[in-house]
């Protein structure tokens, strides 16, 4: 499935990780937006209306859980934007909490290849169509 032209927002404070995702997803022809903290991330969700969001949890200023909580309070069109959580927190309580707040998937960064993330993005974009 081609995801060219889709808008993807990466909310990740680790510059290196964000760049790696940006390069890999950039090759798929998507339009990328990035945010380094939760507050900026939520702002870009509202201003850019991405097709999908990749969200880290441990972020400065406002964390990823906050982004999920606040996004759930917004309009229906914002609420339905799928969010994939990318985190190094691998405990069941964190995964369940993120899912209960509306994350469509939860990836533990250390154990997942970049290609697997791209495949998951494609899968969820297809589902959202």
């Amino acid at each position, binding site marked *: 499935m081609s995801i060219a032209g889709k808008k993807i927002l990466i909310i990740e404070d680790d510059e290196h990780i964000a760049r790696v995702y940006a390069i890999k997803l950039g090759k798929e022809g998507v339009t990328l937006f990035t945010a380094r903290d939760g507050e900026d991330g939520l702002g870009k969700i509202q201003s850019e209306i991405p097709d999908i969001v990749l969200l880290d*949890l*441990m972020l400065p200023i406002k*964390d990823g*859980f906050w982004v999920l909580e606040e996004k759930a309070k917004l309009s229906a069109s914002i609420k339905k934007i799928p969010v994939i959580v990318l985190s*190094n*927190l691998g*405990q069941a*309580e*964190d995964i369940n909490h993120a899912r209960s707040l509306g994350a469509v998937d939860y990836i533990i960064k250390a154990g997942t290849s970049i290609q697997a993330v791209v495949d998951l993005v494609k899968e969820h974009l297809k589902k959202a169509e």
Partner: protein
Amino acid sequence: MLHSKVKRDILVKMIEKSTTKEGEDHSKKPKHILVVEDDRALHKAIIFKLKRLGHFPISAYSAEEATEILKKSSEEIDFIWLDILLPGMDGLEFLRLMRKNPALKDKKVTVISVSGGLMMKDRAMELGADDYIVKSDHNLSDIVNMVVEKS
């Protein structure tokens, strides 16, 4: 005279009631916690978890950095989360020096170590640790909860 004493006692009780809610859980009050941990990924996760619980963690990646922070703002810090295996000065030496310092000797310290060896635990307790938790025995959320409750 007796009348005024009774009045004063009643007033004191009223003030106590107004400032201390019944059943208030003091362990849930926000605390300023100095986290001394050099593993950056673990450090970030600890800070994240403490913040989620409403506390105010302060970061130090070495004993030397923690010493500088304590010099400037020891009064603000409620307790210390201390790793043992640190670059430079190790956690036990940091603890030993802390306990020699009159300004810091009563500061609560929980040692969080990868070592479950009794010798290490005994040494830490002997040097004045208030508690000793072995990292591998618990998940991070449990450790965070234990540290906060024990504080």
